[in-house]
C-alpha cells in the first residue's frame, strides 16, 4: 500500500516541493514562514483555475494556446461593463466573464471538431484573434483602478475565515469541482478514454465531438473566470499585459503536474501540486536574489524538464508492464 503510494506521480511532485522548500528554507529561513506561505497562495489562484481547464484539454489529447487571450478579452469586457455601466451589480461581472469565456471556448471547440483541424493551429489563430479583439473593444486603453468595483478588489484581500482570501477559496472550489468532474462523472471519464485512444473512443459509443467541444468550453469558461479574478487581484485590466504568457505558465504547471502530453493520463491532485510547485519557485526567486526577468526562462525549463520526467516514467511503466506479462507467461 505504502509502496503503491510512493509510485504515484503525485508523490514525486510532492517530494520535489519538499526538497525545493527545504533548500530555499536553508538558504533563506524567511521562506518557511506563514507570511511567505500566504504570498505563495496568492500567486497561484489564476494559474490553478486555468490549469484545471487546460488539464482536461491536454488529457483529451489537445492543447489550448488561446486561454491567455480569452483571459484578456473576458477581463476587458467585464472591466468595460464596470466602467460604462457602474449601476449594474458587480456580481454580474462573473456571469459576463464566464459567459464570454464559454463562447470563445466554444468557437475553438467547434472549429476543431467541425473541420477536423489540429487544436494547436486553431488556438494559435484564436490567440491572435482574441488578443486583437481585446485591443479593439478597449481602444487599446487600460481600465484603471478606480473603475474596478471596490468589492471585487476586496475579494483578493478579505476572507470568509482563517485569513484565506476569497480568491483562493474560489480557486479551491474550482479544483474540487474539477476533481469531481474528472473522476466521478461519466463525461469526465470519457475525456480520459478519448485521450488514451481517440480511435477506440467512438467505437465505445463516446460522442467524441461533443466531448471535445465541452472540454474546450470548460477551458474557456475557466479562463474567463480567471479573467475577472485578474481584475480583482491586480485592480486593473490592460489590453496588452492581461493574460499574455498565461498559457505558458498554465501548460508548465499542467505538464509538471504529471499530465501526459500523449493524452489519457493525468490527475487533478497532481496538477494542483504542479501549480503549487510553480508558485513556490516564483515566490523563492526574489528571496534568492534572482531577477524577475528569469521567470519566463524557468517556466520554459520546467516544461522541458517535465517532458523528460514524463518520458522516463512512461518507459518505466512500459517495462514494468512487459515484465509483468513475462512473469505470467
Amino acid at each position, binding site marked *: 500500500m505504502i509502496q503503491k503510494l510512493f509510485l504515484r506521480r503525485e508523490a514525486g511532485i510532492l517530494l520535489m516541493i519538499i526538497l525545493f522548500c527545504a533548500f530555499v528554507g536553508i538558504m533563506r529561513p524567511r521562506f518557511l514562514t506563514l507570511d511567505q506561505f500566504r504570498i505563495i497562495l496568492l500567486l497561484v489562484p489564476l494559474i490553478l483555475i486555468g490549469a484545471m481547464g487546460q488539464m482536461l484539454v491536454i488529457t483529451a489529447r489537445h492543447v489550448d494556446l488561446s486561454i491567455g487571450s480569452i483571459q484578456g478579452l473576458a477581463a476587458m469586457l467585464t472591466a468595460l461593463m464596470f466602467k460604462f455601466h457602474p449601476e449594474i451589480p458587480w456580481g454580474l461581472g462573473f456571469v459576463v466573464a464566464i459567459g464570454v469565456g464559454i463562447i470563445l471556448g466554444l468557437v475553438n471547440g467547434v472549429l476543431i471538431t467541425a473541420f477536423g483541424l489540429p487544436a494547436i493551429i486553431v488556438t494559435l489563430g484564436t490567440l491572435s484573434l482574441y488578443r*486583437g479583439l481585446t485591443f479593439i473593444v478597449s481602444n487599446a486603453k487600460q481600465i484603471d483602478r478606480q473603475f474596478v468595483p471596490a468589492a471585487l478588489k476586496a475579494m483578493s484581500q478579505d476572507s470568509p475565515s482563517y485569513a484565506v482570501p476569497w480568491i483562493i477559496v474560489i480557486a479551491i472550489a474550482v479544483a474540487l469541482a474539477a476533481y469531481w468532474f474528472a473522476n466521478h462523472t461519466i463525461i469526465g471519464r470519457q475525456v480520459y478514454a478519448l485521450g488514451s485512444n481517440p480511435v477506440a473512443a467512438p467505437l465505445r459509443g463516446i460522442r467524441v465531438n461533443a466531448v471535445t467541444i465541452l472540454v474546450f468550453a470548460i477551458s474557456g469558461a475557466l479562463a474567463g473566470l480567471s479573467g475577472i479574478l485578474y481584475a480583482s487581484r491586480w485592480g486593473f485590466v490592460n489590453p496588452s499585459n492581461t493574460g499574455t504568457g498565461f498559457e505558458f505558465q498554465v501548460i508548465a504547471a499542467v505538464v509538471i503536474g504529471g499530465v501526459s502530453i500523449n493524452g489519457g493520463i493525468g490527475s487533478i491532485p497532481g496538477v494542483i501540486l504542479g501549480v503549487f510547485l510553480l508558485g513556490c519557485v516564483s515566490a523563492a526567486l526574489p528571496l534568492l536574489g534572482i531577477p524577475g526577468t528569469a521567470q519566463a526562462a524557468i517556466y520554459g525549463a520546467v516544461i522541458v524538464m517535465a517532458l523528460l520526467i514524463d518520458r522516463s516514467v512512461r518507459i518505466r511503466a512500459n517495462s514494468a508492464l512487459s515484465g509483468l506479462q513475462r512473469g505470467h507467461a
Partner: protein
Amino acid sequence: MTDHVGVIHKNAVMDSAPPRPLWSVILVRPETMTFLLLILAIFAGGQLSPYFLDVGYILDSFTLTAELSLLALVLTLVIISGEIDLSPASNMALSACLFAYALSFGWPLWIAVLVGMGSGMIMGAINAFLIISLQLPSIIVTIGTLTLFRGLAQVIAGDKSIRLPEWYIGIDKIYVLGLPAPDMIFIIVSSVLALILGMTIWGRQIYQTGTNETSAQYAGIRTRRIKAILFISMGLTASLAAMIYVSRLGSVRYDLGIGGELQMVLMAMLGGTYIFGGRGTILGTFLAALLLSVISTGMTTANLLPATQLCVLGVLLIISIIVTNFIYSRTQR
C-alpha cells in the same frame, strides 16, 4: 499469351478512374489559390492608395517580413516531414541578443557570426534531441523551448536594448541587382530549398517521411536523421534571420520578433502546406510570404490599427487551414 496480358492490362486501365484533366490538376491546388489571392490583394491595395502599386514600395516593404519569411520556408520543410516547430521566433531573439552582445564587446565580425550561428544551431539541436532522440511530441517540446529561449534572452538582455555598431546597421538599404538585400537572400534561399525539395532524392524523402513515417523507414529512409537535420537547419536559419533582423533594426531587445510563430505558421499554411505532413511546396510558402507582406502593407496603408491586423492574421490562419484541408481531402484518392 500476349493477348491475355493485353486483356488484363486493358481491364486494369478501364477499372481505374480516368485521370483528372490538366486544368483541374493545376487549378485545384492550394498554391493556385494563394496566387489568385496575391493578385487580388495587390489589386485591392491599388484601390486603397495609388502609391501602393509601386514595385519599389512593395519590395521595400517586404524587407519588414523577410526574416520571418525565411523561417517560414524552412518551417515548411519541417511541417512536410510531419513535425512542427514553434520555437524559431524565440530562437531568433536569443541568437540576436548573443550576436549583438558579441559585436558590442568589439569582437570581430566573424567571431560574432560564429557565436550567433553556433547558438542558433545549438538551440535547433536541443529541439532535435528532445523530439527525435527522446521521441517527445514536437508540439509541446517547441512550446517549452519557445518559452525557454525567449526567457533566456530576457535573462541575458534584461529590459535594456542592445545597440549595434553603426557600421553593421542598414542591410535593408543595400541593393543587390535592384533588390533590397533581405529580399535577395529570401529569393536565393527559397530557390535553393525549392530545388532541394523538388529535385533531390533527399527532398522527396522528406515528403515520404511526412506521408508515412513507418513505411518510409521500411523503404530504407533514415527518417530520424532527416528530421534531425531539418530541426538543426531550422535553428541555423533562425540565427541567420536574427543577423538580418538586427541589421535592419539597429538594436535588439529580448522581445524581438515576439509572436512571430503565428506569422511563420500562417505563411506555411497559406501556402498550402498540409498540417498533417507529406504535402506542401516552397513555391506556396514563397507566394504566401509575398501575400502576407502585401496584406500587412495594405492594412498599414489603409490606417488599420495593429490590433485589427492581429485579428485579420488569426482569422486568416484558421481560414487558410480549413481551405487547404478541404482541397486536399477533395483531391485525395
